[in-house]
């Protein structure tokens, strides 16, 4: 599948945004962050910023952004619609939570209630995003049990890493919890991605040139001539192929930049405070986000679509 910049940016940014929102909501529920503090508010605004930037980018890549409002209507069947509804619905608790954090004198019960809702919204939205891909049968690389955990874990890993970076300077319990949460998510991500790639490398695609044409009974099926000599929309959209060699290298980058480096940086930073901790936290967050971008690029670039079986692909 063609790795489109806007979709990569959208899924990474909104994933990290919801992850951060979830992390902050969690800290708020446990009571490690309380209204009135500058950093939590900054964190919430950052989360909202990431989410909004992601959503905007996804809207702008539409053929008709001005009709985007129509996308909320089909939540009964469409995960894209559900994602839209969930993301908008999540704004309510998220913005409210941010508003609550402006002043110090907010009842804790209210904060907890709103944070729980924000957490749930964040998780639900990321699940919806993942389900958009998970539900696409023609794309074997997505239509499997790895997709939803993958999105959730990377969202959490990047969100918690950012949260850690935010609080690292304080050396507070919030930093500890965010940091440990991040390390857990990053480790899970490391394992999950490896499992996913193993799956990808061994699984047969959902269909073959023989089943796509129904000509398997005659023998092996090969494309002789495509319908047109130049590429078309389907080939441009679904026909992206990444060389095996490149994919291997990129996978290593994902593992190192996306998981190993941030986890080590956070592990080093835990127990420290001040500038060095902030530095390590920032390294962790930036590295995790970069890793996520590469991971997402691969998620698209490595995915094959059955439609390409009609254009010479030998497997799907």
């Amino acid at each position: 599948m063609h790795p489109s910049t806007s979709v990569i940016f959208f899924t990474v940014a909104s994933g990290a945004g919801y992850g951060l929102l979830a992390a902050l909501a969690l800290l708020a529920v446990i009571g490690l962050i309380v209204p009135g503090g500058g950093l939590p508010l900054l964190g919430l605004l950052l989360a909202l910023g990431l989410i909004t930037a992601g959503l905007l980018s996804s809207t702008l890549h539409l053929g008709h952004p001005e009709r985007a409002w129509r996308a909320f209507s089909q939540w009964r069947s469409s995960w894209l619609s559900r994602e839209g509804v969930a993301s908008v619905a999540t704004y309510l608790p998220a913005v409210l939570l941010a508003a609550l954090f402006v002043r110090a004198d907010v009842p804790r019960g209210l904060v907890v209630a709103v944070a729980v809702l924000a957490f749930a919204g964040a998780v639900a939205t990321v699940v919806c995003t993942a389900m958009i891909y998970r539900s696409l049968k023609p794309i074997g690389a997505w239509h499997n049990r790895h997709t939803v955990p993958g999105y959730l874990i990377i969202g959490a890993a990047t969100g918690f890493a950012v949260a850690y970076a935010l609080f690292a300077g304080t050396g507070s319990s919030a930093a500890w919890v965010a940091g440990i949460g991040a390390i857990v998510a990053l480790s899970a991500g490391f394992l999950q991605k490896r499992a996913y790639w193993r799956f990808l490398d061994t699984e047969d695609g959902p269909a073959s040139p023989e089943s796509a044409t129904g000509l398997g009974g005659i023998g092996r099926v090969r494309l002789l001539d495509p319908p047109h000599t130049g590429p078309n929309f389907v080939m441009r959209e679904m026909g992206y192929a990444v060389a095996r060699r490149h994919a291997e290298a990129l996978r290593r980058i994902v593992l190192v930049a996306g998981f190993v480096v941030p986890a080590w940086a956070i592990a080093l930073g835990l127990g420290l405070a001040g500038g060095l901790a902030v530095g390590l936290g920032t390294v962790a967050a930036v590295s995790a986000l970069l890793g996520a971008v590469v991971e997402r690029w691969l998620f698209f670039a490595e995915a094959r679509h059955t439609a390409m079986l009609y254009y010479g692909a030998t497997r799907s």
Partner: protein
Amino acid sequence: MERLDPSPPVSDEVKCTTCYMCACRCGIRVHIQDGQVRYIEGNRDHPVNRGVLCAKGSAGIMQHLSPARLRKPLRRVGPRGSGEFEEIEWEEALGLAHSWLAEIRGRDPTRLAFFTGRDQSQALTGWWAQAYGTPNFAAHGGFCSVNMAAAGLYTFGGSFWEFGEADFERTKLFLMFGVAEDHDSNPIKIGLARLKERGATFVSVNPVRTGYSSIADEWVPVRPGTDGALVLALIHELLRARRIDLDFLAAYTNAPWLLIEDPGGAEHGLFARDGEGKPLVADAAGALHPWDAAGVTPSLTAAVTLPDGRRAKPAFVLMAETYLDEKYSAEAASAVTGIAASRIRALAARIAEVAFEQTITVETPWTDWRGVRHKRFVGRPVSFHAMRGISAHANGFQTCRALHVLQMLLGAVDCPGAWRYKSPYPRPTPPPIRPGGKLGETGPNAPLPRPPLGFPMGPDDLLVDAKGRALRIDKAYSWDAPVAAHGLMHLVIRNAWAGDPYKVDLLFMYMANMAWNSAMNSAGTVRMLTDTNEDGSYRIPRIIYADAYASETVAYADLVLPDTTYLERYDAISLLDRPIGNAEGPGDAIRHPVVKPDRDVRPFQDVLLDLGARLGLPGMVREDGSPRFPGGYADYITNHERGPGIGPLAGWRGADGSKHGKGEPNPEQLARYIENGGFWKMHLPDDALFMKFANKAYLDHAVAMGFMGSAAPIVLQLYVEPLQRFRLAAMGHGAKQPPDHLRARIIACLDPLPVWYPPFEGAALPEAAFPLHAVTQRPAAMYHSWGSQNAWLRQIHGENRLYINRGTATALGIADDDWVHVTSHHGRITVQVKLMEGVEPSTVWTWNAIGKRAGAWALDPRAPEAMRGFLLNHLISEHLPEADGGGGHLNSDPVTGQAAWYDLRVRVEKATLAPEATEPHLPPLKRPPGVTTPTGPLRFGAAFGRSPENRKPRP
């Protein structure tokens, strides 16, 4: 939920005319909305396409709206090929053309060479050339399929090419040789579908398994140029198995006619004749009779002594002697063709089984020309069709003849289930027209006594001077190509450039892209068109070209006459040319303007008649010198008479439109055609539908309609005597003899019984150096070069690859998508390959005419057609390799002069570097004035959509 109108209005009006996206002549219904063409569909009532429409026809809108359309007459202002033109007014253009033409005609009309393409107005252009007085006229047939036309017309007065069709409704076994698409594009597809529906068997003999061959029940991957050997082996097997139709041969062919056996004599191999010149036959007792004598049963075997003491034997015996020889065995053919001997035998057995054990009948009584009444038509349901895979070889005439002999042996000619004549064929074998322009028949301001093209019966009809040199610029009807019934268009530019046999002053071309895809040696042709004498003048002094689009050739003209598109003019698809008749009856058709041109262009036929009138050509002016057809081509179509009562159109003749075939001109004729959907079709009487060559009802009908002068039967020519006359000359008899270097070839190749000989190019080259055959195929969705300007079709075929057998490629270290050098004895091209299974291992092929010269056709100069498309033509030479010993030999069939495109031999080597573009890459052409490459999206149809207000593009 969407509100959807299931019944939107389709168009304001529908006009019926004839397609011209190719030469198939399908009927179309053009939907016009707001004065614009909205949709074109097939005309259900039309006899050719019966409602269907091919890809090209369906893309007619884009051809009509092509940005490459020329807009105004052009006069060259820069050097030839620079593309520098100025737009001029028609009056100036016509004045210029007239002054050139008039000067030449007053001096020596043969110094005009007038050559046209696939224009469907050859009845007009040929007549014009005759009136002008130049023999140097022909259309595209010489490089197209004259082998098929000539072989058929000399054999049975019809042909695979255009003048016949398989009886798809009844045939049980259909064998197709070397056909990718053909002129009968839609009818063949409709026919194949009917075969499939009926469960009949379809065999395709073709080195490539695509298109029609892909749906064949049997694909026979023959090595190019060897079909003759295959067919003669089938004949051998049938003779050996005694599976031939003797009654048919005795009754309807010249098999019983007696051949003089007088080796070394001047009449050896000619028919023994009586005092009136009638060929003789012998009866079983050995008594001689004129072949058509009443009550005689001719013997097929009786050898006799003629009254003058010479021996004679039936042509049949010579045929049997010849083909029973082991030289023609399946084993021998297998070594040549690459087809297993067992498969050849099985094919022969299958053919015989269907012909003789699965006969069918049509229960209509009929009477033959002798007056014998037959209770029914008996059909041998084996049918054949062949086209350029056979004809585009230097042995194509004889291969086609071999197929016709096979048909005769089976008795499968024009009977139910077999190949059938398209009315108005059959014609006499050959038609009684001899080429005009012999010595003394041309002169200042004088018309030719006969049309320039015809059918020679022997050396006397050749157009050669006292020394045997060609009188025509293309050497048609010379010893190089004695039966060149369509001329040799592929040699005109080369010969005019070389002054061989002489120079011309004006080259006048119409609708043929001679500077590109219809030329052999395209790059060389371009050089010849621009080559200059020492004084700087052009070697071809003047060139006028009439095209509708900015083709490659436009750039090389001095004067460009812009034509209309096919939806903007009148045309006649005439019985005098290549009509739309079929086996069920004759038909013809017109085109008429369904939309008005938005440019300053004129139909070429109007222009030609205008020039004819200005020149005062006979038939084109009245007594007072005023134009005879002031109303242009429409006027001519209606009022011109070729003979009394015979005009371009056969329908609704007579003052009141009540006559068909023959009758006085009818001023309302065109209106009647338009009312009837643009065509006229007549159904033959049931008893005239088959065996037309010998069927009294048919022959009488043909005379009444004006198709034939007399109701004499058409005797199928197993043995083609005129060829023997050329051979006798080559053996040293008669006043007109060929030059020495051609004698042996004429004796070997102009055999009156079909022979197979290896194609010349391959024979002249070391096999190891050029091990592969290279051929082209027509893509169904593209017409030669002119489809590339079509926004829709060019998406389907925007570039081409060289297809090569996977095994062959692997052995050469070539992988899919590799770039390769393809080298012939003449040149080299560098192109990209595509590997495939379904191609004979020694054959490589590509689609014809996809490659374009950069800058032509209003395309971006970096268009894929120019960057990744290519032509094989750069590899093909007009002449044979020197190794042959006769360097001057034409790369053409020695009988007809047909261009031997498919004799091309090459080697293929992997290119180490992928070039930026296919090579050779000629410098880009400049676009003529008024022609630009549009940019931005093409939103054709937006204005017609269901709710146009909602279709506005995004801001």
